[in-house]
């Protein structure tokens, strides 16, 4: 039986991975297109709005904050989309969580940490409910979570109005500005650095000499942390492997023993948690809540994930891509402002930029996949 010894030889080692192999793998990553798109967007604004303040420290802090909040959602949504599902109730969940915190603090007199904890617990319940409904009924998640969108938003409104008679809950953080939890979610970091930079004239200062930008929003750290966690989950863990499988072909995944239902339910809990994190950050930053918070965030998050290379059909995508998708979206959204274009044309511009970003993204990805 020497016939196929060469092939059967178990000592045959894997080919060594040359640098080019690593490069090829990198080129095939879903986020490549989004990164290119980001570069192009920055170039475009560099030309059209170069010295209008977009790339001043204040401008950067501004669009990073917008991107960061969206990015927190986009990371979770990217995971869910890779797992082959949608969560349209995301935006309503934000409103629901905001109001939960507001009511707990203002009406029930709880402390902010307790209110935040309650909001997260509720998120787990809502997410699990969404997930269980989807896996049990085998209905498309689009339609189940759409019902969730209406029900959650409606509950938010009805409960708030029943309890307070209004649709807005003010003064949530009053007198607690110094508390750790408020800082952790709604604060700023890097203040000393900025103060030093301003004092030495590196960045713009206010008339009183303090820095124009007093620190970066904590949401930026959360964004990075959530994205890193999601990426690690996707690439490095068994759970991540299952997410890809469940989205790629859930029947096949079930056949090889992947606990499909459990994976999906966990993903829905993940998006509900990200929505709540978003709500906590917004409430503690702004100090108020209202029943319309988070409206349409579900679509923005999906857009960011898609720009970032996620397939709508599931099974393909990355959290880092979603991060760049959020960055593109945030930069375009705020960047238009600096170009001085009349707001009547804002949406035309936004739509065109989106299209161009996705086209570039797609072109790059296709070229990269071909050239592997």
């Amino acid at each position, binding site marked *: 039986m020497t016939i196929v010894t060469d092939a059967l030889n178990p000592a045959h080692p894997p080919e060594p991975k040359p640098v080019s192999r690593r490069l090829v793998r990198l080129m095939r990553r879903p986020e490549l297109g989004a990164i290119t798109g980001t570069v192009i967007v920055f170039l475009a604004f560099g030309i059209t709005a170069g010295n209008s303040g977009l790339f001043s420290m204040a401008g950067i802090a501004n669009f990073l904050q917008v991107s960061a909040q969206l990015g927190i959602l986009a990371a979770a949504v990217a995971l869910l989309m890779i797992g082959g599902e949608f969560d349209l109730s995301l935006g309503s969940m934000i409103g629901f969580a905001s109001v939960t915190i507001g009511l707990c603090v203002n009406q029930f007199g709880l402390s902010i940490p307790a209110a935040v904890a309650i909001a997260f617990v509720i998120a787990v319940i809502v997410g699990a409910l969404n997930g269980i409904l989807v896996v049990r009924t085998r209905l498309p998640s689009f339609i189940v979570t759409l019902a969730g969108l209406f029900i959650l938003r409606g509950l938010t409104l009805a409960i708030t109005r029943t309890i307070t008679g209004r649709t807005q809950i003010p003064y949530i953080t009053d007198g607690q500005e110094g508390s750790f939890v408020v800082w952790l979610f709604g604060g700023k970091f890097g203040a000393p650095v900025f103060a030093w930079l301003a004092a030495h004239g590196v960045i713009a200062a206010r008339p009183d000499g303090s820095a124009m930008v007093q620190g970066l929003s904590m949401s930026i750290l959360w964004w990075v942390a959530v994205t890193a966690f999601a990426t690690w989950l996707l690439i490095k863990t068994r759970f991540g492997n299952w997410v890809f499988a469940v989205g790629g072909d859930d029947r096949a995944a*079930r056949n090889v023993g992947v606990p499909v239902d459990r994976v999906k339910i966990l993903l829905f809990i993940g998006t509900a948690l990200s929505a709540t994190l978003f709500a906590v950050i917004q409430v503690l930053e702004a100090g108020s809540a209202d029943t319309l918070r988070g409206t349409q965030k579900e679509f923005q998050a999906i857009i960011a994930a898609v720009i970032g290379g996620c397939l709508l059909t599931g099974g393909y995508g990355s959290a880092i891509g979603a991060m760049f998708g959020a960055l593109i979206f945030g930069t375009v959204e705020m960047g238009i402002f600096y170009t001085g274009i009349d707001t009547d044309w804002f949406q035309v511009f936004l739509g065109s930029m989106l299209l161009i970003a996705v086209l570039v993204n797609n072109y790059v990805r296709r070229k990269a996949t071909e050239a592997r």
Partner: protein
Amino acid sequence: MTETVPLIELRNVTRRFGSVTALRDMSFAAHAGEVHCLLGDNGAGKSTLIKTLSGVHTPSEGQMYVDGKPVTFSSPRQALDAGIATVFQDLSMIPLMSITRNFFLGREPVKGWGPARRIDMKTADAIVYDQLGKIGINVRDPQQAVGTLSGGERQCVAIARAVYHGARVLILDEPTSALGVHQASIVLRYVAQARQRGLAVIFITHNIHHAYPIGDVFTMLNRGRSLGTFRKGDISEKEVLDMMAGGREIRELQQELERFTKPGSGAEAAAH
């Protein structure tokens, strides 16, 4: 050998899909150290039978036994956990995922502890490279997407996966259908090795030249019913072939096929 308790057994199982009855009052047993061939025409119910064994379908009626104990698998995972590995006819591969990720899907090797537990991708790649090399497939990169493989290469990955993970029962649904002569013979050798290691192998094929050499027991299906189970000693290759053709007048057909080989005979064959 048949006095031993079968590793896996179906008794009087019926399986319906709406008004279609794919299996009807079917009994079937597979023993350790035996290769059990399932034979039958297209649509006879072979795939339905093995899907029932591997937990994809539950019987509409009847009972399944593993090691003589009644079991009900509500998902393929439970079958896998009971040591039953299957190559499905449609392969159960995720085209967009890499070969390695597909290979270990559901049974990923992990390293590290607690929250740092992660897939050991290096080990996994090495195993995949090794296992596919054994079956005669030289993949350029185990991280390549399964969707870019040829039909036969994909089948080899599925077989290697089942063989690697198979613990007590190995079920193969037409594993050699898309394979070249070379790869097919390697698969047959795998089957022989698995039998040698004491596994029960259930093997579906339409190719008598694959079925007869390797099979110990043959079960014949027709329209969802069992036509009987035969041991190799009691039956010749010719008889098996007769059974595979569903009892139809196979000899005439073979004659006719031979006529094709004579040049110019096409005229007669096509006259009908």
